[in-house]
């Protein structure tokens, strides 16, 4: 499954054969991702919280409809769907019934996370630069984007978001909070569509 995904990615993103000729910049890292981002991928998430003794795990699928609709379907250990569409977050329960719908503007934390995820997925370097201080690092085989929220308007909960990947594909989102908590979302590969 993973092999299939990697070969598909190689097939779809010509820039891989080229590699990175010059030093990394945000645009060149994001560009190849965009082509692949409109797929449904499986994810595994680990939450490291100060208040629990072991990490909280969940897994499911993540789908992105450019430019600003992100759907996270949790399948284990319980079923739940979160849809971030433009500036609204809607939660659906196991049966697909809506349990909550709030504006992303109500919470700085939520907005930063979803805006950053979506900006990366659609390759919007400008948006990222507006929200964060961006630094890109890495090599030919892997890259890393460090996002530091711009001078906090209020006491922000987010300390840093780190996006890691290989050419043409995001491997993980790592969200670090100011209280030491951490959320690590690993993207494993596209779901085979029937």
């Amino acid at each position, binding site marked *: 499954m993973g092999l299939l995904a990697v070969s598909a990615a190689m097939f779809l993103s010509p820039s891989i054969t080229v590699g990175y000729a010059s030093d990394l910049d945000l645009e060149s890292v994001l560009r190849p991702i965009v082509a692949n981002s409109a797929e449904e991928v499986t994810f595994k998430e680990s*939450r490291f919280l100060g*208040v629990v003794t072991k990490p909280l795990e*969940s897994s499911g699928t993540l789908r992105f409809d450019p430019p600003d609709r992100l759907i996270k379907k949790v399948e284990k250990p*319980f079923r739940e769907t*979160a849809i971030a569409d433009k500036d609204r977050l809607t939660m659906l329960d196991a049966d697909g019934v809506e349990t909550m719908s709030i504006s992303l*503007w*109500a*919470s700085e934390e939520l907005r930063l996370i979803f805006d950053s995820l979506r900006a990366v997925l659609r390759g919007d370097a400008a948006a990222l630069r507006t929200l964060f201080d961006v630094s890109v690092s890495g090599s030919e085989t892997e890259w890393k984007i460090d996002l530091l929220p711009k001078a906090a308007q209020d006491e922000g*909960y987010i300390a840093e978001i780190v996006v890691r990947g290989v050419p043409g594909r995001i491997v993980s989102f790592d969200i670090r909070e100011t209280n030491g908590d951490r*959320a690590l979302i690993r993207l494993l590969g596209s779901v085979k569509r029937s």
Partner: protein
Amino acid sequence: MTAVIRTGFRIILAFAVLGGLAAATIMLVPIRSDMSVLLPEDRNGELGALFASFRDGPANRTIMISLGRETPAAPLDAPRAVSVAYRTALEETGLFEFVTNGAMRLDMATLAPFYDHRYRLNPALDPESFSAERLRAALLRLLRELRGFSGGLLQEIMQADPTLRTLDVARLWQLPSARTRQGVWVDADGTHVLLLAQTKSPGFNLADQEVTMARMRQVAEGLTPAFGPLSLQMSGPSVIAVASREVAENESLRLVLVSVPLVAGLLILFLRRFSALPILFLPLGGAFVVATVVTAVIYGDVHVTTLGFGVTLLGIAVDYPLHLMAQVRAGQRPETAARRIWSALLIAGSTTVFAFLPLAGSSFPGLAQLGVFTAAGLATAVAITRWVLPVLMSASGQADADWGSEAPANIHRALRAGRSVALVLGAIALSLLLIRQTPLWQQDLAALSPVPETLKLRDRALRRDLNVPDPRYVMTVAGRDVEEVLRRSESLLPGLQRLKAGGTMADFDMVARYLPSKERQEQALRKLPDEDRLQKSLDDALQGLSFKKGSFDPFLRSVAERRQEEPLTLQDLSGSPLAVRLSPMVLESKNGIWALVLLRHLRNPGELRNMVEKSGVEGVRLLDLKQSAQDLMDGYREETLRWVAVGAALAFSMLIVTLRSIRGVLAVAVPVFLAVLITMAAVAQITGSLSIFHLVGLLMVAGLGIDYAVFLRRASEQLGDPAETNAAVRAVTLCAVTSFSVFALLATAGVPILSQIGLTVAIGTALSLLLSLVFTSPERGRTL
């Protein structure tokens, strides 16, 4: 020359005295302007205090704001930026209690008050929620939520509040959702951002409100560099009051600027005497002073509406000096003229006084004051005309230019033929009044408002978009103190919720929704588990879950502390953001406290009343403010008609006593009656229905009519002296012409109150003149 100087000096002295008295009067006499005093005596206690509280209350201080691009249809690029910038700028002016622009934020600062008071505020505390089973469910839920994305906030709350009761409490306080874009309120088509602001100055303080509104416009202009030109629209009770006042002031100014030269011109033209002007207004000024003082002595104060309408009615007094001046002959002393007209003056004056005096018997304070004011004023005017004016008038009075000495008298005689025409017209008028498709008396108060239609429409749209409660229906729950009021409101909660669910109303809001009575709070706090029991339940719930040891110690501590807490009172909340939301719903007065139940889209008031009755809760009242205002107007109208009928009977008797002949009485009574009748029918035809202000105009028409008819009657009795008749006809015509021009001008006013009085009196004056001439016309060769 010395005579002129002496006269001039006397006039100036008289005016100085008058001016001094007037100033003293205005300074010393308490003038009331709150509308609650207009309510009839028997209801005055409760309803009056309620309306006074409304007036002082926060609802009247709320301004609805809409801010958008100058060129319509283009939505704002960054609505949130504009909205936040405007809100911040307004807050910085320091003129507002608060300014809000959108949905509640989910952060600790906003949630703090709900967190602090979570066991005392509604929703009702369920002691079962502290059981091991429920705690476990809550903890499992936490483990789910923590996998979501608002972990930061959640963790701040959950350690002391694992059931997240804070959020349940906060949810109750959410304002019904207005449309939002980027998290700020926008209007129906999304092109304007909306805000709500509550001013620090009270709503009835129009001067301060105007200053505040001007600042708001300035602030909007200040945003131009950042966002381009923006257009600001405002509405709300104080905005409308300011707009009404502006219209009224502009109109009044315009009317005064035109009417004063007009009247002055007419008078100088006919009387050929510049001293005529001050002489004319002296009785009016004196009448005003005496009337105000007498009213104040009897009632303790004078209402501003009494002054307004009273001064209008005192306009009748302008005729008396005109008669005097018209009668002065060449070479004669003014004193002689005064004596000559004295009987007519006395009859006309006393008849009118007796016509108005019975209004004093009304149970409506506004009317009673008006009756006394007018009666006292007119009596004073008569006295001044008879005894003061002749002293002030020049001894060597020039006779007025003759039109041709016989002409007026001849015209007068010729008009006799018009009697039958007049009676026919009267009959037609009567039938028009009796046979009508639509009600005669106006039902729609809104038509009396001088506010332009655009402002009314804007108000409606903003109320709809911001989900502001209706201004029409409001329920009040009365009680001795806050506790009683809360207990009673609480009893109504289930019924109200049922009605809301059933669609009888869209929504309701009241303090009891958020804050339980002390009783309930104490009950709830007593049910909080003690430390040991809670520890046990918590330990059971935590079995096998991966929470770190001691994570929820804050919870144990918190509950232990809060068990000891005193119930929360409104007083405790004052100064907090919660108070801002609650205070508009509680009114205080010296008689007691009212809690308001604000309603939105009440479709069936009857059902609501039934529910209240069945609930058996005391002190509850559903007010239909629109209907109350209408009923009040109807009450005034009925009272006026009733007491004026008494006055008419008195006046009629007065005529019989003074004129001593049936023919004489008829000669005066018939034209007055017909003038009022035909005017009434004519105005009803033109405007569709009559309002109470038309009625005030008709009173004036009657007064003027009596005046014309009596003077003409006296003149026609002295058939041997054509000069007498000429003088009388000229005088009456001059009175009528000046009154007509002033009131015709008033009829063009943009303020319905003024235009209605103007139309009525203009038509009535013309008719009174004609009809008086017709019915007092002597038969050829007859002596009476």
